[in-house]
């Protein structure tokens, strides 16, 4: 996947302050790519995935949490998550699917049929 090429957005300072990049794992098989992103605090409603041209943008907005009194100690980040990846042209963008479970987003990006390896039968 060109997905290993991450779009750098640091030239836009305002944006990089607002968001934090989630940790990701990206796997590739013959069938396609799987992208997992850790976004604790984000539910299905806070998720936005956009495919535009050769880019995929994942954005996760944290669900509002009930204020539980005075903070004594804070190290959790409060920023929303965002990260942009470039897509391998082999990906069939019409078949991209996503789900989120316990704060881990899984995006499945299948390769289009024409690029999948196939065995040629020799007569």
């Amino acid at each position: 996947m060109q997905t290993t090429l991450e779009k750098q957005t640091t030239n836009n300072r305002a944006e990089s302050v607002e968001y934090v990049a989630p940790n990701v794992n990206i796997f590739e098989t013959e069938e396609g790519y799987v992208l997992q992103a850790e976004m604790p605090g984000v539910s299905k409603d806070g998720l936005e995935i956009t495919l535009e041209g050769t880019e995929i943008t994942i954005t996760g907005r944290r669900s509002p949490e009930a204020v539980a009194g005075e903070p004594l100690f804070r190290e959790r980040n409060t920023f929303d998550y965002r990260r942009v990846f470039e897509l391998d042209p082999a990906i069939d963008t019409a078949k991209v699917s996503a789900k989120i479970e316990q704060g881990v987003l899984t995006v499945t990006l299948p390769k289009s049929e024409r690029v999948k390896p196939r065995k040629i039968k020799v007569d």
Partner: protein
Amino acid sequence: MNLLRWQRPELAAWQSFGGLSTLRNEIDRLFEAPLTELARTSHFLSGSAPVVDIYEDKDNFVVKAELPGMKKEDIDVSLHDGSLSISGERKSEQKWEDAEVHRAERFFGRFQRTVALPSAVDAGKIKAQYKDGVLTVTLPKAEEAKPKQIDVQVN
């Protein structure tokens, strides 16, 4: 027609440092955040310890820990001598063992975090909830630790 498939050099897993993107976040922050902010969020070397927030209200302490992608039954919460321990294991997925790895920033393996609580809690009434990858532990204060209103009679 191009028959050669371009093979990307494999990226080494850098799990012990909590992921490259975390490191990148820290570097970004170094240039953009005030120093106190940096100190507060600088945990990229912690690796296997989940980040936590601790809150206090009149009746409870509330500890929130980020544990994305766990199974409820793989998280252990325990209390010893006024310290709360959150531990468990994030198991790596067999499913992707044969796949080509392009990025490996997520932490897998055992983790533990212990926080000392400022005052006594009622161990029998501790509640834990796991939602959207965030564990919330509510620890009611022990009766003797709650603030009391004492009426002072002045004659």
